[in-house]
């Protein structure tokens, strides 16, 4: 079984990028606290589990940055969309947001995770049954 080396340099660089992006998003005050928490969880999972994998650092960095931008845009647009919907339906915005937002976040996080792994994954075909 091939051992996967822990790419510590990739992890450090990834952590720095994640920290910078999370801080920038936090300081923008454009998305809610809940959305920032979801982005922090995404960064934590992505940096610790994707950055140690084989693959160029540039690809991982682009993916992490893209993930943060998509997450930020998704949450911002979702916030605006839900705001309009709750006003037109005359329901409480905070309750609706809290209930729906984690599911909405999960949709992009899982999909982006899937795309990232596909990008990094080698195309080698698995040996079937016997060699």
């Amino acid at each position, binding site marked *: 079984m091939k051992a996967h080396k822990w790419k510590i340099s990739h992890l450090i660089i990834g952590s720095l990028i994640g920290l910078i992006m999370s801080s920038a998003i936090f300081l923008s005050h454009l998305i809610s606290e809940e959305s920032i928490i979801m982005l922090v969880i995404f960064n934590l999972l992505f940096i610790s589990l994707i950055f140690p994998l084989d693959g160029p650092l540039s690809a991982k960095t682009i993916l992490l940055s893209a993930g943060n931008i998509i997450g930020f845009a998704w949450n911002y647009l979702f916030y605006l969309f839900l705001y309009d919907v709750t006003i037109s339906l005359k329901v409480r915005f905070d309750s609706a947001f809290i209930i729906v937002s984690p599911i909405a976040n999960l949709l992009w996080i899982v999909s982006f995770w*899937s795309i990232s792994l596909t990008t990094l994954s080698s195309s*080698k075909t*698995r040996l079937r049954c016997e060699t």
Partner: protein
Amino acid sequence: MIVEFLVAFIFVLSIIMMAYLVRHFVFSLTVLGILRRKELPAPKNIAYEPAVTVLIPAHNEQRVIGRILQRMTELTYPENKMQIIVIDDASTDDTGKIAEDYARRYSQIHVLRRSKNVGGKGKASALNSALGYAQHEIILCFDADYYPQKDVVERLVKPFSDPKVGAVQGRVTVLNEPQNIVTRLVTLERIGGYRVDQQARESLGLIAQFGGTVGGFRRTLIESLGGWDESVLAEDTDLTFSVYLAGFRVQYVLEAECYEEAVETWGAYWKQRYRWAKGHMQCCSKHMFKLFRSKNLSFKQKIDGLLLLNIYFMPVLAFFLWLSGISLFLLDFPQWINILWGPVQISLLSFMGNFAPFFEVGIGAYLDGRKRACWLIPLLIFTFLYNVLICTKAFFDLIVSKIFRKKHHSWVKTTHSGNGNCYIL
């Protein structure tokens, strides 16, 4: 009062959910080599080749029994050291006839036929009936729909050179993966379960699980445990905990691979998972307190065992957590719940695909080089929702059977179509 109760309920469940999330995160880090326990010296080049008995329980498996028996004749393990017993468990089709045909041609294959009066009561009952006919100390077990690699026996028996190993488990992969969306999603579940979950538990010295097939055990150990408990639907989980409580361990062998014919329809998926869920819940009530009292298990094994025993309750709790959360938000809620709610939702919704979170399944697919399989990970949300329904029904059915003191739980067999044959090269 209701609000306070809901807050307390959500808080406790959130902690439990996040414990599972952390567990799977640790498992993922472990298989990536970031966390690893100190390696034990591996017994290399040990000339350990004991005689083995292979049990193949079969109930109405005419479409697949020939495939595994043919494969048994192609194994690289010495024929004179193998006794293969096909347990024709009151089949009403040609299973027995096909097995008898192989038994006539190959001396190592034997058929044990069970009549309708005594047979057809489930796998545990079938295996118990064959135990008396097994001639050897090491017993391996394969389901009739499985298709092992040629050197699987060598790989599975090797760990038994360690006297502390009571049982071994090999890796299960899906044979009929390209068939449809159900088989593809089951494949992802299997990847999460066997490539990451089982491997990590083995590496961390936790509770590796005996899966009832593609595995083996010591005959003397199972006899000392009184054989399989026929009242439990998940005889494999039951045996796993019995082995650990008896002071032995289960060793997972990633390299011992075997293909299974996965369920092909949502109906078959429901029946199989319902049996697993109910059986697992039975095991929980049977072993939970013994687990804590045991002096043969380390603290981390007890914690892992606790989480493993309760895993099928999680979709049920997730369902109640979700309802409580919505009720609480509609009534009134303390602000700190806002902060907790996001991670909780990630935790509970990540119990998708046989309860392995999306990141764990993804890492498993990556390590297997399954580039295209990664695309389907978002669809595992549907299997999670389906499992919520399955486990909730199993939970309530079990409660009803406890109230009415019903001890017998009917075994619903998984039907195999034999469609996997076309994927064999």
